[in-house]
């Protein structure tokens, strides 16, 4: 094939330029350490990197969220521990006050300490986190949830729990409302509560009772009425049934799948009422206890009344403690879930980052060897150009 001189020149200089361009591109890759300089270098990879980077950013944000939730749940946990300790102390005092060795005066001393505890409990319920947000106010977190009134404590917060996003598809509740922790605690044994009728004249003291068979068909309110039979025997009947049974103090009275025990000696006409358990705030429970300790004298009937009231308060306290334990267990479960989520996110982050690096990062070994190859190519092109340019027939004429 014929070849023209100018084309021959153009082709040989063109190949030098081409080598140079390739070399410059590889040099850019080497200098930046990036395999993709513009999306055109690898369109699929570039789009993938954008998606992956977005996921990484989101996960990092979620990790921060999880950290914040951890802090909040940690604050809540600390307060709940305090509340638990307080309730424990109150229960000890109640048990102590229940002892017959205490006179009415001594009971009032105990009541005085309970009043302190009461104030402390209100303070705990009004705890704030580091940002000045009330822990137990629900969504109204900028307003003090519990306030004292003449009659007791009022809850001003709401029942909204806050969700926080801690994983790409995972939202967690990160708080409990005061309603949940302090207010809506069932009283009695959780199913029913017991109390003596107002005009009881005997020394009968009823315990908080138990449920033996939830399907037993118990209907509340239920009444246990006492009478003295013609023979002078103490008998009781349930719900006005007329089915009189002999009464033995301390022996369980069972009916409709439930059981209560009455100790002491009720008088003729005394009665005890079993009511369906209702929500009762921890504050009401404490106030009831204080009221019971501050009332009555030292005669047996007053004592029986106080025993009944304290017994009821202890049952309510047990419910309150159980409720705090439940909430703490939930907090623990959430903290555990966050921990797990943090781990999962961390692993996902590692994986995503390595995926990005796989797409984006330059394989230096490969790039350097390519660079060297291109360098040799350029040198060859340059040298051959110079050598060939020297050749011309005219030189020989």
């Amino acid at each position, binding site marked *: 094939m014929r070849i023209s001189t100018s084309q021959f020149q153009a082709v040989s200089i063109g190949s030098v330029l081409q080598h140079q361009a390739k070399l410059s591109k590889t040099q850019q890759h080497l200098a930046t350490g990036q395999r993709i300089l513009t999306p055109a270098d690898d369109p699929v990879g570039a789009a993938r990197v954008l998606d992956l980077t977005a996921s990484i950013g989101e996960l990092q944000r979620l990790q921060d969220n999880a950290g914040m939730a951890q802090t909040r749940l940690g604050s809540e946990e600390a307060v709940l521990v305090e509340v638990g300790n307080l309730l424990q102390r109150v229960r000890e005092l109640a048990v102590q006050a229940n002892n017959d060795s205490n006179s009415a005066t001594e009971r009032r001393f105990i009541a005085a300490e309970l009043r302190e505890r009461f104030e402390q409990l209100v303070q705990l319920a009004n705890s704030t986190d580091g940002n000045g947000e009330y822990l137990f106010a629900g969504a109204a977190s900028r307003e003090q949830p519990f306030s004292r009134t003449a009659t007791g404590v009022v809850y001003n917060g709401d029942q909204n729990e806050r*969700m926080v996003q801690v994983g790409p598809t995972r939202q967690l509740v990160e708080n409990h409302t005061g309603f949940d922790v302090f207010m809506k605690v069932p009283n009695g044994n959780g199913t029913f509560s017991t109390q003596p009728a107002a005009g009881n004249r005997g020394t009968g003291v009823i315990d908080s009772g138990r449920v033996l068979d939830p399907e037993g068909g118990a209907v509340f309110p239920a009444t246990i009425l006492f009478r003295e039979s013609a023979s002078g025997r103490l008998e009781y009947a349930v719900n006005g049934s007329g089915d009189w049974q002999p009464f033995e103090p301390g022996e369980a009275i069972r009916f409709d799948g439930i059981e209560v025990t009455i100790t002491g000696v009720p008088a003729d006409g005394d009665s005890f009422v079993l009511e369906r358990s209702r929500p009762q705030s921890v504050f009401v429970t404490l106030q009831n206890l204080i009221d019971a300790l501050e009332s009555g004298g030292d005669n047996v009937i007053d004592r029986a009344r106080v025993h009944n009231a304290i017994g009821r308060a202890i049952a309510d306290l047990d419910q309150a403690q159980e409720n705090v334990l439940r909430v703490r267990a939930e907090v623990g479960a959430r903290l555990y879930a966050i921990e797990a989520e943090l781990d999962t996110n961390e692993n996902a982050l590692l994986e995503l980052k390595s995926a990005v690096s796989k797409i984006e990062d330059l394989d230096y070994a490969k790039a350097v060897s390519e660079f060297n190859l291109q360098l040799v190519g350029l040198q060859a092109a340059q040298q051959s150009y110079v050598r060939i340019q020297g050749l011309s027939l005219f030189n020989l004429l």
Partner: protein
Amino acid sequence: MADLFQTSVSGMLAFQRALATTSHNISNVNTKGYSRQRVELTTLTPTLVGGGWAGSGVGIAQIRRMADDDRNANVRSNTAEYNRLNTFAELSGRIDGLLADKNAGLAPSLQAFFNSVQQAAADPTSSTARDVMLTEGRNLVSRFHFLSSRLTELEKEVNTRLEVTVDEVNELASAVARLNQEIAVALGRSQGAPPNDLLDKRDALLEQLSERVATQVVALADGSVNVFIGNGQPLVAAAVSNPLKTVASADDPSRREIAFVAGGSTVNITNNITGGSLGGLLDFRRESLDVVKGELDELATVLATEFNRVHRLGVNFDQGTMQRGGDFFVITDPANAARTIDVALTRPSEIAWASPALTGEWTDDTGQSVNTGTGKIGAARVGADVDLESPAAFDTIRLVRTGSGYRAEITARDGSLAVIEPVPTVDGSLQIAVAGGSIAVEVTGNPDEGDAFFIKRNVNGRGDNTNLLALADLRNHKLMEDGDATVQEFYSRVVGRVGTQTLRANVNRDAQEVMLEQAVAYREEVSGVNLEEEAAEMLRYQQAFQASAQLIVTANAVFQSLLDAVGR
């Protein structure tokens, strides 16, 4: 004897011409578009002598231009295609770099924005976090503006280049027309001997023309050519050239299009133009620029619409009172969404982060529940058009469990009471009609008869983050492409597609470059000057010339000897 002189002189003259042509070739070795020339020799008419027809020397038949029209046409069409692809690849690469740039692209600010929403959701009472959200929102729209303005700049550049290129095409076309005329005249004067250098010049012009637009060249009998572009518009008809001009687009006055002017009428031929840098510019605008611009607008529109829709579902406590959220983003010109999107809010407290209504168990004065059952009420879903402001708007709804279902006692803000029966829906929630719209809630568990729940106007629930969570969740919603892609995925797809387009343009350009080189090599095979060859030619003609000159000496000697013989 005279014959001998004449014959050798004819040789000397012919070889001199041949040497001159060789010299012409050598001189033009670097002239673009030059086609090498060859002197074609022929024997002169023989004369009849006693013994028969005696040769009378050599003459020049033709100075032939070594060119092949097919090869030239091949170079032209490849040039047009190469320039189209080159222009496309160059401009496409600019968009490519713009969109995916780690700092200039949209992806980082989209991500930062949604992260800031998520952060605000995690700390709903913090106005700092909401301030950050507002700032990130502004960053996002300014990124939209930036990208949009860069695309507009590119569009302006396309406009300018179209104008410049059209001017160049017009100049080249009129130059071709002039040369057509000159060539026709020269051919007439030389009675058919081709004006080689003029032809070369015209071919060079035609090649330059095809760098700008794909042409079809048709040769005429008088040596001139017609040049057609588009679908048959005669850019050059013999000695006449018809100009192109740029006109404003009917759809968008800021956009230039190409029209063909002939005989006083102007025809828009934008869609018929192919090849060359003109074709590349138009292709780029149509296939890349317009598409990306449209996608960016779509992204801005969907993002603003959806974000606003959710934002309006929530409430803020701006200036102390609860009120429904307004639009977060505003788009003033829907046709240019990316350029005109803006953040409508001015203060962080205007961000609607909470739900308009809070729910819970009905409580007495001390905040204690009155319920005995295990029923629980879920969050209220308050419709976007539910009235929150007027006196007739709901204030408190008491939802009471009755023997057969539920009863809703709705107290309005003006204190009036309405009792209605909520409508159970298929998803298990209860629909409660209130002023302006309806509220949906769900009750789970087993409420006892008489148990009650409340749905209250959210007057102080500043710690509620329901709406921010919903806003943050938009990131994961497949809002684009008929529910097939999230906004982030959509943007990635745009980047990927532009990258692919650029890559394809580059690959095609490189392939076309090879094609063009081959076409040029193919032409040069015939037309190119090779100095070695010319050196050989030079030697050949030099020797022939010297031989002819020697013949004169010989003739002289012969003649002298004759004179000597006679003169004695």
